[in-house]
Each structure stands twice: as C-alpha cells, then as structure tokens.
C-alpha cells in the first residue's frame, strides 16, 4: 500500500506540468454531414483496419469535448456497420497529445450536479460500447493521455504507447477536486488491482510509459524515432500507427492475445484480494490515510474510494451509478471550484504578458552560492543557459556546487536522466570567486545577504563589469527594490525576482517591478522565470511586496498565539487543519527564524502597528540563542537527523514563558485561533490588491497557494473571500478587532465586498 501517497495537493500542483484539461473557449461546431470531412476526428481504412485520427483544429491538445464525442460516436457506428473492417486504431495526429482530458469548460458550463452527472453517464455509455466492440480497438498513445483520455484508452481492447518524453498517462481529476467520471473508477481496479488503482486515482500522478507497461496499463511500447524521411514527430506517429495497425490485425485474427499469463505475485495478490475481509481492511486503511493527509478537507479522494468500493462489492452497475452521481456532486463543491480555479490561474501565470524580450538570456550569473543562490542556479543551467555561480569564499562555493550536483544526481538516481546527461548538463555551470565572464552576462541575479548595504556594494561592483544590456535582478524577500535600485546607475535594468526555498521544489516566482523598471526588463525576467519552469506573478514594489507581506501578517499572529500559550505542536495542528501543508511553527523554522525576525521588524517599521501582535523580541531572542530554524538544527523544534518525530525545543518554551501573554477567552477557541491566522493573511492580500501591489486576484491566489502554501482547497485568499462570504469574514474580524485593535481592521476593499454580496473577486 505504498500507493496512497499524500494528497498534499500543493506538492502535487507543484509537480504537475500537464497541459491536460486545457480550458479553451467554446468553439463553433461545424458538424458536417459529409463522411470524410469531420472536424475533430476522421478515419480511413487501411488493410481492413479503420484508423481513427483525432485532431482538434482549435487547440494544441485534444480534449474530450461534446463535439468530439458526437463525431466519435458517428465514426464508430459507421465502422461497426462495415463488415470489411476487422479492427480499429485510435490515434491522435498531434505530436504531444493523445487526449489530454475532458473539456473543463463543458463542466464549468453546467448549472447543477444533475447536469454534470448526465455528462458523466454519456461518457460511461460511449466507453461501455467501445469496451463491448465486436472488433478490436487499439489505442495508440503518443503524448498526454490523461483524465477522460485515459478512460477512453482503457475502454479499448489494446493499448500501445510511445516512450516519448511527452507521453504521460494518469488520472489527475483528484487534483481538480473531481474523480474519473467516465468509467475510470470501475475499470482501473479490475485492470491494475485495487492497490495500484487507488494509488493512481488518489495521487493523480503522471505515469511514464515504462511504468505504465510494468503495471499493466498499456500492453506494448514503441520507441520514438529520430529524423528519417520526415521530422521525428511525424515519423514517430506514423511508426506508431503502423505498429498499431499490425496489432489490430493480429488481434482480429487471434495471432495476438490480450490475456497475459499472470505471474505468481499477481496470482497471490488476486487470491488475497478475493477475500472480502482483506478488501475491507484495504478500504479502511486507504480511507484512514486519506483522512490523515487531507484532514478531511478534500471530498474527492473519499468519493473515489466510495466508487471503487461500490463497484467491487455491489457490481459495476451500482459502481457506475455511484461514479456519475458523485462526479456531479463533486463538480459543484467549493473545493473543486477552488482547485479548478487554481488550475486555470496556474495556466494563466505560465504566460509572458510582457511580450518577448529584445534579447534572449543565454548567459546568466548568480551571486551568492547559498541555499537560494545555488537553488536559482540549479533551475537555470539545466535549461541549457550558461550559468556562473559566484561566491566570495571557497567554502560557500563548494557547498553551493555540491547542492547543485546533488539535485542533478538525485534525478540520475531516479532515472529521470542518465549519468551522461547529468555530466553534460553540469558543463553549463561554472563556479567561481571572481567576476570573470560577467562581461558576457545577459542577466545577473544576486542572492547575497539580506542587508541593504551589502546589496548596494554588490550592485556597484557588478555594474562595473557587466555589459550595458545586462539585467540586474535582486532576490530579496522583503527589501524594497527601489531602495536597492537607488545604488544603480541604470534603475530601468533593475528588477526583483523573489524565489522561494527550496528553489527547485517551489514553483512560484514573484517578480517585483519598480516604477523605473523597463517593460523589456520585466519581459526578460518573466522569460527567464518561465524557462526555469516557474509559475510567475508580477507585483508592484513595496515593503514585503505581496507574498512576504501576507505571510508576515500571519506569522505575527502566530507568534502571539504562541505567546498566549498555544504550543508549537498545537499551532501546527490548527494551521494544518485549515489546509496549510506546513504548520505555522514549522513554516517559521523552514523560512528561518532570523529571516522571519528580520522581515517582522522591517515590515513593522514600514507598515506600522498593523503588523503588531506577537512580540518581535520573541524571534530576536530565539536568534540570539542560535535557534535559527531547521538550518541551525534548532528552531521552534529540534531537528535531529535520525528521529522522525519532531520535538519541541525546550529553549523556545522558556522564551515563550518569558514573553507570556494572557489569552482573551472570547477569541481563543480553536476555530477563532484559526480564523485569526487566516483573516490576517486574507486581509493583507486584499489590501495588496486595493493598493495596487497586486495586479489582479488571480495572481494573488496563485502567489498565496504556490508560494506560501495557502490551503489549495480554499483556492487562495480571494477565492476564499468569495466562497466564505466577505460579510461573514468581516464580522469575525470585527470581533477580533475589539480585543486586539487595528491588526484586525478589515481593509476598505474587503468592507466594500462585505456590503455588496454581488461583488466578487472571481466571476
């Protein structure tokens, strides 16, 4: 049961790179009556095998839309009615996409759960027909085969997949708060066994072709080809088609059998799964695991378990009904709405809205080989950008280079890349102590110590050696960019690029522009960020920009909560209970208590008493005692390499005792503590929008979720206000305001929304 892994939605969003379920607008349907000129799918008969080619003319990927389904049904009827056709092949003409999933807009357009249920049942019916096809249908998969696309493929009699890097299979519905609603919950357990099916559907993770073959998801693999008489992409599709036609013929004349001899382990597993008692144990175990990881905040995984269980225990008819009904209900939940919103937001934040930069960044230099600097280098040089990593000491540089190497070597160990690719990739990185080669740099990103004087010194040094076109980006979490740019001779080339630690895991990049930053500089920074694989928000300059500001507000409240006697463990449980992937105290340890103290003090000075609450002295005392968080081995918790269970640092308990505050009973219940933390975060977000730091609510939601771990089930602070109700939130805040003062004063924009329930951040 290694299967059921964290439904830690955040981390999964962080690794999802799908182009699945792409949401493009509605298209005009031109349903031609002509047999040979359909829009989304066509077929030709080759050697007694009908080759059905899918190609959505309006999109880069194929999606399972209503018109496609309609055309497909027509085609299948024609084929089944033609006695000359002995088999069929289902293939996409697009190089990178088989079928990337169901059309999300189709679901979005539904007004009620019943409507969505009907959609699901239509899909189920079509795939049932395919499963019962009188002739063998071979799904020839190249590119993304996800969600509804995968359900289509597993209804076919035989599956071939290319080993292309673009070929991925999976059921990512859970990440959108949905479930595989077109027979997936019924077919997958039968095909893969219950544990593997749960693993696949509950994690929603991408499955590579090799793994898919091993687990029995596809029958046969085909290698991608290089250039020959055509381009590699065309050649590969044609090769796949040839092999698929051969397979269809062999299936038709019984030369090829779908039934595979089961291995001993498989037989044993089947036998064990045959026992109702064992199955019950499994359902319980999986449910427990899901509850542990989701805190019950996400309904979709539980419904998936329910559908699988119904199908197995009560038969497919009951299972299918449960699947379609649950699919409809889930589509209407606020969680699904939130997750789908995040998906769309993420797609929007992977575009460059500033045009293409005048120059491509081919040579990049990173200053400072600390955790951040090395992390930035790590996500840059492996995209074939020549990268210099500069530090001032051999020790610092060595550590940084080791971090970079470890990142790549881990990929090698996981077989994501070969050792040869690792070594060639490493050749793009140069570690050094001087400014050699900076005259070739197109962009310099500094990640030196967070001190304005140090930053000023560095900017002057660098500007003396870089060419005129070179952009100077500063990676700071709180220092206003315009203050850093004050030392620059060319402020239009200065920009903030705020990365999140660990850089190779965290997907967000917050880009900060000053009023002097040129559009081309912004375009270039966004282009680099996109190349680094980041989701990007572009915000205005100010103390703490957007993300740090929201986090600081919440952390200030967290410190107060600690001072009021709620222990770090309890605090973490409460924050996690909201849906944050990391608890408040643990998060402070991860960020670094010194950084937190620094930020708290700076923002307190810049933004005044609104950032009060917890006493900054608590953090400062911790720093003095060397409790700097995980990096120093001690923070709120004690970090030991061997022990899994974190122990609360007794030193911190002492400090908290010294700064003890008396809790106000009226606002100190568990739920109130949670809302105190949440409302300060949300209010600060809305204030950022009000002040123009944030350009729009979408980027606000994306920044909060992907950068700070704001609960994905809430969809971000703005989505939360919409679904929770601004008026209710304001009510709560007023209660806290009475006790604590202006830290809980709702900002004007929030008040406006509270007054008028028609005002919403998301349409």
């Amino acid at each position: 049961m290694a299967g059921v892994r964290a439904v830690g939605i955040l981390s999964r969003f962080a690794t999802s790179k799908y182009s699945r379920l792409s949401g493009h607008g509605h298209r005009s349907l031109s349903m031609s009556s002509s047999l040979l000129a359909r829009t989304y799918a066509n077929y030709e008969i080759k050697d007694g095998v009908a080759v059905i080619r899918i190609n959505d003319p309006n999109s880069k990927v194929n999606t399972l839309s209503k018109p496609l389904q309609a055309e497909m049904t027509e085609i299948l009827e024609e084929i089944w009615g033609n006695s000359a056709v002995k088999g069929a092949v289902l293939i996409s003409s697009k190089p990178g996409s088989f079928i990337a999933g169901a059309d999300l807009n189709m679901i979005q357009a539904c007004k009620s759960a019943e409507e969505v249920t009907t959609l699901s049942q239509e899909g189920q019916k079509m795939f049932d027909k395919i499963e019962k096809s009188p002739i063998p249908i071979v799904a020839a998969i190249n590119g993304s085969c996800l969600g509804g696309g995968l359900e289509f493929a597993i209804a076919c009699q035989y599956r071939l997949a290319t080993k292309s890097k673009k070929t991925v299979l999976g059921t990512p519905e859970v990440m959108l708060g949905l479930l595989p609603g077109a027979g997936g919950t019924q077919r997958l357990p039968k095909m893969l066994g219950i544990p593997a099916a749960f693993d696949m559907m509950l994690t929603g993770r991408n499955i590579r072709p090799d793994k898919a073959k091993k687990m029995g998801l596809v029958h046969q693999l085909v290698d991608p080809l290089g250039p020959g008489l055509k381009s590699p992409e065309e050649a590969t599709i044609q090769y796949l088609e040839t092999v698929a036609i051969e397979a269809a013929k062999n299936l038709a004349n019984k030369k090829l059998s779908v039934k595979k001899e089961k291995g001993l382990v498989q037989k044993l597993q089947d036998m064990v799964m045959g026992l109702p008692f064992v199955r019950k144990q499994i359902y319980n175990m999986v449910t427990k695991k899901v509850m542990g990881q989701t805190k019950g905040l996400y309904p979709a995984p539980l419904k998936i378990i329910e559908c699988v269980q119904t199908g197995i225990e009560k038969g497919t008819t009951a299972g299918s009904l449960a699947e379609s009904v649950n699919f409809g209900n889930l589509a209407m939940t606020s969680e699904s709405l939130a997750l789908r919103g995040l998906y769309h937001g993420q797609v929007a934040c992977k575009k460059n809205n500033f045009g293409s930069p005048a120059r491509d960044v081919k040579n990049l230099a990173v200053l400072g080989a600390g955790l951040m600097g090395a992390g930035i280098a790590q996500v840059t040089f492996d995209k074939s950008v020549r990268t210099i990593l500069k530090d001032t000491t051999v020790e610092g540089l060595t550590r940084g280079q080791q971090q970079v190497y470890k990142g790549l070597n881990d990929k090698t160990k996981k077989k994501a890349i070969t050792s040869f690719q690792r070594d060639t990739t490493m050749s793009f990185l140069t570690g050094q102590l001087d400014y050699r080669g900076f005259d070739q740099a197109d962009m310099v990103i500094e990640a030196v110590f967070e001190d304005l004087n140090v930053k000023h010194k560095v900017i002057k040094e660098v500007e003396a050696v870089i060419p005129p076109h070179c952009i100077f980006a500063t990676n700071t979490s709180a220092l206003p960019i315009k203050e850093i740019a004050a030392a620059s001779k060319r402020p239009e080339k200065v920009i903030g690029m705020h990365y999140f630690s660990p850089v190779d895991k965290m997907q967000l990049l917050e880009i900060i522009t000053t009023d002097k930053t040129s559009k081309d500089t912004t375009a270039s920074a966004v282009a680099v960020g996109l190349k680094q694989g980041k989701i990007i928000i572009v915000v205005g300059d100010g103390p703490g920009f957007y993300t740090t500001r929201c986090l600081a507000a919440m952390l200030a409240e967290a410190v107060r909560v600690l001072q009021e006697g709620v222990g770090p463990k309890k605090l973490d449980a409460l924050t996690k209970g909201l849906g944050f992937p990391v608890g408040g105290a643990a998060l402070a340890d991860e960020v670094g208590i010194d950084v937190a103290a620094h930020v708290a003090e700076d923002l307190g000075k810049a933004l005044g008493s609104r950032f009060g609450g917890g006493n900054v002295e608590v953090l400062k005392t911790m720093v003095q005692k060397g409790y700097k968080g995980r990096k120093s081995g001690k923070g709120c918790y004690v970090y030991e390499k061997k022990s899994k269970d974190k122990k609360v640092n007794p030193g911190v308990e002492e400090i908290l005792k010294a700064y003890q505050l008396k809790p106000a009973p009226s606002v100190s219940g568990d739920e109130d503590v949670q809302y105190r933390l949440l409302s300060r975060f949300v209010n600060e977000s809305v204030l950022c929008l009000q002040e123009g730091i944030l350009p729009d609510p979408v980027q606000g939601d994306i920044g909060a979720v992907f950068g700070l771990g704001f609960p994905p089930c809430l969809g971000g602070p703005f989505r939360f206000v919409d679904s929770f109700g601004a008026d209710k939130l304001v009510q709560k805040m007023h209660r806290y305001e009475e006790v604590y003062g202006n830290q809980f004063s709702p900002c004007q924009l929030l008040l406006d929304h509270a007054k008028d329930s028609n005002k919403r951040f998301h349409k």
Partner: protein
Amino acid sequence: TIYFLSKTLAKPNVKNIVLVDGVRTPFLLSGTSYSDLMPHDLGRGALQGLLNRTGVPKEIVDHIIYGIVIQEVKTSNVAREAALGAGFSDKTPAHTVTMACISSNQAMTSAVGLIAAGQCDVVVAGGVEFMSDVPIRHSRKMRKTMLSLNKAKTLGQRLSLLGSIRMGHLMPELPAVAEFSTAESMGHSADRLAAAFGVTRVEQDEYALRSHRLAKKAQDEGLLSDIISFQVPGKNIISADNGIRPTSMEQMGKLKPAFVKPHGTVTAANSSFLTDGASAVLIMSEEKALALGYKPKAYLRDFVYVSQDPKDQLLLGPTYATPKVLEKSGLTMEDIDVFEFHEAFAGQIVANLKAMDSDWFAQNCMGRKSKVGVPPMEKFNTWGGSLSLGHPFAATGCRLVTTVAHRLQKEGGQYGVVAACAAGGQVFLPKYTYAQLARADTEYSRGATVQVFLVHSFGLFSVHVLCMKMTMCKSVQKHF
C-alpha cells in the same frame, strides 16, 4: 598539431602515400576455433602474415599502429605485444588506438599522418578484435574491498573487510551493452533507424541475404585473397571465414526480432555477428615503396571523419561523410567505381541508402540543397560485407581498404570509396558515431596501383585531419 599538419600538407610536393599490401586472418564466429586464444595472438597472426606476404625488411618499419575496441587488460598496448610476437624488431615503436568500429581506420589514418608529416616512411597499421573472451570484472564494491584488503595491515582489519562482503558484492560486471551516452544498445538504435526510414523487415532480410550470397561467391572464386592462413597454436590451420551462410528468405523470415520486441525488424540474421579476427596493412610513402621495388596496390588519398547525434543518427555516418569527401576532391558519385561500406546491420545500410536518396533528409538534416545520391548496387559491396564475412570491430577498417584495392584491380576501376559507421556488432558498443570513408583511383602508368582516398569524421568537433592535394592524381588523369 592538426593545424600544423594541414599547413605543411598545403605545400606543394606533398608525399604520395600508398598501400603496399593488406592481409587478414580468417574471420570466425566468436566462440569457435579461436576461442582459447588471446587478442594479441590473432594480431600476431595478421602481422606475421603481412611480413611473410610483403617480405618487408623488419628494420625499415618505422612504426606500428594497431587498433582494438574491447581491451584485454593484460595486453593493454596490444600493438606492442602482437608486434614483438610476430617477429618485428624490438626497436620499432608500437602504439594502440581505439575508436570503436573504426579503430583500424584510425590506425591507418594515423599512419598516413606520420608519413605525410615526414616522421616516418614505412608504417604498419591494423587491428584486432577478440570477442570469444571479454573482460568481466568484479563489481565496483568488490573491487573496492579487494583493494582495501591489499592495504590492510592487521589480521583484524583483513577479517573485518572480508566480513563486509555481501552477496551483492559477487555480482559480476559485464562490458556495457549500451551506448554510454544514451543507454541504448546499437541494435536497438539500428531498429529505430530502420523504422525512421521506413525500411521493412523484408528489405533487410533481402540485403543480408545478398551479402551472404556475394560473400559465398567471392569465397568460391578465390577473390578473398587478403586472407592468410592462421594456425591455432597446437591445433589445426584455419584458412577460411566461417560466418558466410547463404540461406533463404523463408529461413530468415522465421527469426524473431532481437532488440525491439515484438514489432522490431532487426534480427540476428540481418545483423553482423560477434567475430574474432585481425587485419594488417603496410603503408609507405610512394618514393620509399618504389625504391624498395614494390608495386603498390593503391594511393591512400584523403579522408574525413564526421560525427552526429549519438541518439538518433548513430549509424548515419556514411551518408554525411560520402558527399564531403567527394566534394573535397572534386568528384561525383558517378566517378566512383568501387564502394565498400561497412555493414553493421542490414537495416543500417538500407537506411543510409534511403537517406542518401532523400531530399528531405539532405535539406533538413544535412543542410544541403539536394540529396546525396545513391551508389549503384552493382558497385556496392560486391564481395560480401561485414554481415556475412564478419565484423571483428577493430579489424574491419583494414579489410575494407584492402578489399577496395583488390576490387579496383580485379574490376579495372579507378576510384574507390570506403565508408564505415562506428557501429559495433550487436552488443559491445562504442561511444560516438563515426563514419569513415575512403576513395581510390587507379593509375595505369604504374601498373595496377590504386589511389584510395580515406575520409573520416569524429566527435562533436569535426576536424579536418588531413587535406592532401590532388595535383598528382589530376595530372595523371589528364595524361590518360
């Protein structure tokens, strides 16, 4: 030094370099009659055969260069061990080169370079491969333990090291079956290449069958005169290749794919097989050869090495290199009388022929305006090839060049081209893509001597290794 070479060669009065003669041992399927030997034994056989056939005085040989791919660790400079054993002078330096399947081509072009640079006048080049035995190592863990054991001082230390040995330590390490850079085996790559060019199973089987039939014919007619007999010490005398097996399309069609399963097209029957064998050639400056009274068999003229992406174009070297060398020497495909291309896989040969016939490939992959053009099959590998004669990796290059010379003599041709991709046989494979090409023309004024132009390519740095002037050749042509 490379630039130095081309500069000196750019001067007029460049020396002409000739192939005096070439020999090889019979090529045997690995695991047959040679199976108890060591690589240098076979090398010794070829070198001794060359001495006997040419009667070259040992003391005038300036240098010996020998190629090998899978090295026997006991004889890492196999050139020296083989030369000493063959009775060459112990005053003649010898070194070993390696460049996957074109190792002996590298040996020959190194020899050409030494002579052209004026360093030597008489050089012996060749290569050997012995696949009946390959070095199988202890695992890295075990080796580490054993090396530490050497250094252990006390009994306690030794015991604790011995105690650390686990089952996992005992797993042996076989020579790599896959390309180091791409982790793909050569046969697998050939199968993909064939698919990319739409080469069918039938086309491959037909080509393989042709190779075996032509080799059989050449063998029966006594054309494979480069073979010298080899007496396996203490055993019988071997005087013929044993891998030539012309069967039928039906028989070949029964085989299952060897690499890509179940839909692949490359089988054991349409691939070259693991082979034991050695070859050697005697190369001299023309003046030296004539002064010694030899009637050289060919001029070695020019060569080019090219290299491509090792993933998708591993075996396409000949397509890239052929037009380069032709253009360099102002010749066209029609001028060539004899083509000898190394046959790693039937699919690879047919794919190359299709690539040479494709405008799309020429325009999109080679940056040419139009296709290279296909060699006419009646001039192509007419005495069999690596598929049928066998492919001892590092010995194949010399066989190709000697065969071109012999075919030009026999058929009365003027120019010949040799091309080889550095494809291994089926398993033990090289690291990059190499292609080798040679061209020859006949010069009647000196009897049946032939000019061979060698062309080579290597690595990501495409280097012009040698650029020899065509003056002599052209004046001769005018004369006739």
